[in-house]
């Protein structure tokens, strides 16, 4: 049994991280590419259906979070197991949203199975959103050299969060 509340460190894995998204030039390429990593890692049962859930969520409101960060996410039956794909682009690409959007260098794509409670889903998103407020956390992601650095950044970041 998985615990009800997911932790970022439990759902982020080496094969769903790419620290050099250099060929990516726009939002849809980025979402497609990150969803591909989740799919290859065996977390999705149907990549296209999952991507539809991501765009459905996009239609409800912006997932661009300023500071060169975007957190698109989708909750779907097409997700076998919860996962987070993380991509970093040193040059950045334009992430358009209904209210404008902006240049993105750090993008997290969350995949959440429908069977997981809404609260567990939000807890992960909330934790990530809170971490991303801290300059130290963003900087450590920008300078991370490998998966282990990303995990360390998350663990160190959690220490910055109070209550």
């Amino acid at each position, binding site marked *: 049994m998985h615990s009800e509340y997911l932790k970022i460190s439990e759902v982020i894995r080496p094969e769903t991280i790419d620290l050099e998204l250099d060929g990516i030039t726009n939002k849809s390429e980025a979402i497609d590419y990150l969803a591909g990593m989740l799919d290859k890692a065996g977390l999705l049962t149907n990549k296209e259906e999952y991507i539809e859930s991501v765009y459905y969520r996009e239609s409800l*409101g912006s997932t661009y979070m*300023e*500071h060169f960060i975007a957190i698109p996410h989708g909750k779907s039956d097409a997700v076998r197991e919860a996962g987070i794909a993380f991509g970093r682009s040193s040059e950045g690409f334009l992430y358009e949203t209904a209210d404008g959007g902006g240049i993105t260098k750090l993008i997290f794509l969350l995949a959440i199975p429908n069977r997981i409670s809404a609260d567990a889903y*939000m807890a992960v998103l909330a934790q990530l959103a*809170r971490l991303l407020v*801290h300059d130290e956390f963003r900087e450590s992601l920008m300078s991370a050299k490998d998966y282990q650095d990303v995990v360390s950044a998350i663990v160190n970041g959690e220490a910055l969060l109070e209550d």
Partner: protein
Amino acid sequence: MKIVAVTACAGGIAHTYMAAESIKKSAKKAGDVAKVEIQGSMGLENRLKQEEIDAADLVLFVANISIRETERFKNKNIVEIDPGKFVADGDKWLQIAKQKAGF
């Protein structure tokens, strides 16, 4: 200065939490004490106590939807700021909020 804030947003999650964290971070940096209630999709988190509200010098409503249970803030010095502003630059908007409140 003692600050209490309530955050809420239409999307319900990421902006609400980012704004809340940003208020806490910027308040700490400015030497203020801030308590932040989050009215998100999981209900009221870190619910403000009435005595905390009563003791506050400044109340921030950081929301783009209506805030629940506003009767708790009767007669308080309330400043409203969009959550997106706090997500983008907490230090700057905390300063602006204080000016708006007359500090």
